């Protein structure tokens, strides 16, 4: 293989058609306030877990909406369900319930205990 001093970059295209967005759909159906999230990051800013580890609820919510569930599944178990994020959300999203529902959906739809 010829070395040109540069390489092809990994594709960062998000394919909404190919991704499974059923988890996000389940959450929206049971907690409609999920749709109000504007990804401002207040939840992550106040998160105790996020303060000591790389955990970011904001990132998880974006990944859920995109249907990139593999990354969410590993991360979401770190949440301690303290609910501080719910208290600070400027859009009134019940983020604690979003996390609960995401875990429920993974368990019900993918038979994956979180």
């Amino acid at each position, binding site marked *: 293989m010829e070395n040109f*001093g*540069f390489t092809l970059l990994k594709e960062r295209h998000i394919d909404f058609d190919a991704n499974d967005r059923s988890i996000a759909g389940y959450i929206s159906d049971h907690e409609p306030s999920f749709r109000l999230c504007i990804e401002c990051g207040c939840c992550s800013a106040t998160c105790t877990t996020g303060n000591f580890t790389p955990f970011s609820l904001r990132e998880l919510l974006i990944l859920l909406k995109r249907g990139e569930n593999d990354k969410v599944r590993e991360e979401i178990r770190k949440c301690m369900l303290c609910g501080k994020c719910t208290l600070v959300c400027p859009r009134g999203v019940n983020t604690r319930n979003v996390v609960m529902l995401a875990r429920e959906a993974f368990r019900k739809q993918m038979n994956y205990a979180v």
Partner: protein
Amino acid sequence: MKTEGKKKIWSEYQKEIADDHFFYVRSCIRQSFFPGSEQFFLHFMRNVLEKDVYENPSHTTCTGIGYHGDIVPLSTIMTVVARHFALMKEAGYKNIAISCVTSFGIYTEIIETWKHYPEELKKTREYLFKATGREFDIPENMAHTSDIIYKFRNEIAAKAKNLLVNKKTGEPLNVIEHIGCHYSKMFPKYGVGGAEFPNVLGGMIEAWGGRVVDYPERRHCCGFGFRQYLVQANRGYSLSNSVKKFNSMKPYKPDLILTNCPGCNMFMDKWQYTMKEMDGTVYGDNGESIPVLTYEELAGLVMGYNPWDLGVQYHMVQSEPLLRKIGIDYEPDNKFKTKDGRQMPVPKNLINV
């Protein structure tokens, strides 16, 4: 179907292209890498259509590559362009014909800047006068040379000796049309069909018997992006853009890529070579790469000119598979010979040979 309304809407997407008396400005990339293209354009306009096309030897680069690479400031490039307009005024021309899509984008951007910020125009007039003692007028009509070939596409079709049809199967060739982003994505009113329905190359392909391929990434950037290739380590950004397009067009089995921007042509041609060298990937049918031609080269082939006179051999991806499909006779031994028969050096690693 009622077409009156549609015709009216479509008429709003047209641009006025001058008919004669052009001040011609060359492209750095086109004249260096595809010299036959500009030669064909001048020959076609002057000798075939008998139009007046004037070229001034004092014309310089527009410095667009430096501008987009953050080396040349806006006030400097505006003064350089003002000097071009001054040369045009001195020669008595009002219609400008621009060979390069980067330059075309620069001219449109600067003219629009002057319209919205007249104080910038005033400053530019002052800079130019202080530096050179010249004065200038803004062109009355501005056309990219692909606009002009588009305007005269039916005249070319009338003189066609080869149509864009597979001679063996009788099927039209699948042609990818790639229009440079700076042609009409920035200022849509300056392009035929605007930014939404650019028809400048599609119109030529259809007039010359080919079939335009509508593939998902048709309007994606070619990957040229000045800052993406100026630094070697960054060229992966450029290559990745082109590969995204190539992967998207591959299932449609394209016979040819047609470009109006010299930069797009260079990168879509050379990145195919790079991908083949890197990991052996090719994007054409039958294990071949896809020839990438300029509209002048394609017009010349349609009109029956010798492919080697048009300079199609100066691309990395060679055009022989295309020439065979169309049924154009060529002399392989004369490929790299001068007009008086002297052998020129033969480039190494050409593909599709």
